[in-house]
């Protein structure tokens, strides 16, 4: 039993070990990060770009918690992620205010139509 658990825990093979393998969390956060970049580059809608940023922030949060959990259950990573969440909330509020302000002046939030700095 002990040896079995040890081997499932070690699980240096890809994807093995389920929730006990650090690699799975790193893979998830890598995927979320890449998808966030994808959304940021390919979306024209300002809100869509903001969604990409949120995805990236979530990916970094997962990384912080995963590394701190797999380095002996410290809480530092969780504190960092807490700050990331606070920053994401503040950023979302300001960004959406900006979106509304842009919409009031340009009647559109498609960013390729919003190309002058001053009306």
């Amino acid at each position, binding site marked *: *039993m002990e040896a079995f*658990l040890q081997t499932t*825990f*070690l699980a*240096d093979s890809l994807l093995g070990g*389920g*929730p*006990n393998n650090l690699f*799975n*969390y*790193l*893979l*998830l956060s*890598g*995927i*979320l*990060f*890449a998808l966030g*970049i*994808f*959304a*940021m*580059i*390919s*979306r*024209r*809608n300002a*809100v869509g770009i*903001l*969604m*990409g940023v*949120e*995805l990236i922030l*979530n990916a970094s*949060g997962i990384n912080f*918690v995963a590394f701190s*959990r*797999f380095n002996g*259950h410290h*809480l*530092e990573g*969780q*504190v960092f*992620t*807490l*700050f990331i*969440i*606070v*920053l*994401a*909330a*503040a950023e*979302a*509020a*300001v960004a*959406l*205010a900006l979106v*509304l302000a842009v919409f*009031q002046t340009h009647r559109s939030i*498609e960013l390729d139509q919003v190309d002058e700095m001053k009306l």
Partner: protein
Amino acid sequence: MEYSVQIMSPAAHILFWFVMVMTVASAALVVVAKKILHAAFALSICFLGVSGIYVFLHADFLAAVQLIVYVGGIIVLIMFAIMFSSHTQEAGGEGGRHYLALGAGAATALIVFTSVLMMVGKLNQPLAEQNNRAYEAYQHTVGITAADLAAEPQRLGLGHMLMGEYLLPFEVASILVLAALLGAVVIVRKETKG
């Protein structure tokens, strides 16, 4: 016997993969959805999944914060912004994205993802070590019962850190949130003379 309950059981493995697939699929939907409102709904599912991942990482307080702030707050803000700004239906809900933009986005995302994978591969040896270290940390928690956890929960340590070692960043964050609040009001407010 209680050992196998403490260490993740097969049911937990299945649940873990379910949450992983749900998170990745909804994140993909955020990117490819034609209508921005569908993307917002998919994003809320994705945040739910990330909260589940936090539970698997033994960060239960963080999972609750994720639910409250992201699903309860940011998603609602995003929905508000979409509904305030999308009565221009002639844009077709951003139906046609430029192929150039899609290609550039896909290429950049692929490059970023492979470089992340390569970095993880570089730390392959420490990866096994870290998994091992997590296993050793588990050894001490085998005897812990739910009652023990309720007596001294993890959020206690988190609170001590926020009020002790990380007090200055905490206060700076609170000032930042205040500034963001005022800034949002100032930005949206209509210009009124006098």
